[in-house]
């Protein structure tokens, strides 16, 4: 009586089951983020706070990019977004392979000089850059990342200054080293930095 085949079948079945289960568990544990936007479809010529030309996304290929959207005439929400970018960088231990960007959607007022002063206010390091550009280019960029803006109120102040404010999307995005946007978050909430830090730590480890 040959018992070997009958004895061999259950272990191979069990091994196969264990192997498949392992693969399933492993794939479930992997950070398999879906691509939200592939930024490689276009190229945007922008400029940073030091008037240095920046080509997006080419100049950032090979790095993770954490990107928020702000305008400097915004006294309340945009400082929160900027502070969140700074907090993420700090909590990650100032990684050299992660670039932090604050992109202005108000290029008419946010010139490189203004962004330079804005950067000084927040005392951020060289791995944080603020970008602006020609209005049409900036609008095209905002369209590509689905950041919406609209003029909210235009008023003349008591001292006769005409000012206007913008309603805007509240977003921070993470772009992977291949130039793909893979995660979007609400930008100004206090809980956001810890979520982004957690996600980035699992991505860059």
């Amino acid at each position, binding site marked *: 009586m040959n018992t070997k085949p009958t004895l061999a079948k259950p272990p191979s079945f069990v091994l196969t089951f264990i192997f498949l289960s392992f693969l399933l568990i492993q794939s479930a544990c992997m950070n398999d983020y879906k691509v939200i936007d592939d930024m490689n479809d276009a190229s945007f010529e922008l400029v940073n706070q030091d008037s240095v030309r920046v080509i997006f996304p080419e100049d950032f290929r090979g790095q993770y990019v954490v990107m928020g959207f702000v305008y400097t005439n915004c*006294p309340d929400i945009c400082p929160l977004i900027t502070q969140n970018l700074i907090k993420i960088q700090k909590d990650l231990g100032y990684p050299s392979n992660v670039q932090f960007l604050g992109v202005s959607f108000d290029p008419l007022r946010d010139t490189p000089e203004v962004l330079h002063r804005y950067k000084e206010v927040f005392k951020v390091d060289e791995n944080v850059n603020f970008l602006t550009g020609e209005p049409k280019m900036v609008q095209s960029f905002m369209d590509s990342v689905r950041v919406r803006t609209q003029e909210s109120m235009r008023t003349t*102040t008591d001292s006769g200054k005409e000012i206007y404010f913008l309603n805007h999307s509240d977003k921070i995005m993470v772009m992977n080293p291949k130039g793909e946007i893979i995660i979007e978050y609400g930008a100004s909430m206090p809980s956001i930095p810890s979520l982004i830090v957690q996600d980035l730590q699992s991505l860059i480890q």
Partner: protein
Amino acid sequence: MNNQSLLFSSASTRTKPLILLLLFVCISLGLMLGCNNEVDRPDSALEEQGRLTSLSMAKSEWNIAIEDAWARPTKAGMMSAAYFTMHNVGSVADSLVQVSSNASKDLQIHLSYMNDGIMVMEEQPFVAIQASEQIPFQPGGYHIMIIQPIKDMEEGDKISLSLYFKSGMIIEETIQVGNPTI
């Protein structure tokens, strides 16, 4: 016989002028009360009224406390905002109607909020506060917008902040630049 004839048919000629005078006074009072719509509208007229009222209002009677006030650091000509908790410790409702500061000639009361995925900021003509209520002026909500300060506002600097209320109360605070909790 017309209505007037009916009304005065039984009155003597001596009492007619008196009745007419009384009618005139009643109608005038009614019109005055009916046209007075300033009760719940803290506009500039009320601010003026408030200033006058404050002259006769003792500071000890003021019932709004401003707690944990601070302003965001910025550069001259850019934007800043002031935050605090407004606490009505009294038993009478009031409204914040105007603000001023030595940091800028232009201050506005604003509210930020999320609407359909878009962050919105709107100027508020006033902020009403009920008795015993606490209203936080905090990032992402109510705030005092300091438009284009006349000089740099560095962490640790002090600026003045005056808050004008519908009741005539004026609160004058010296507040710190920089969030003490960060």
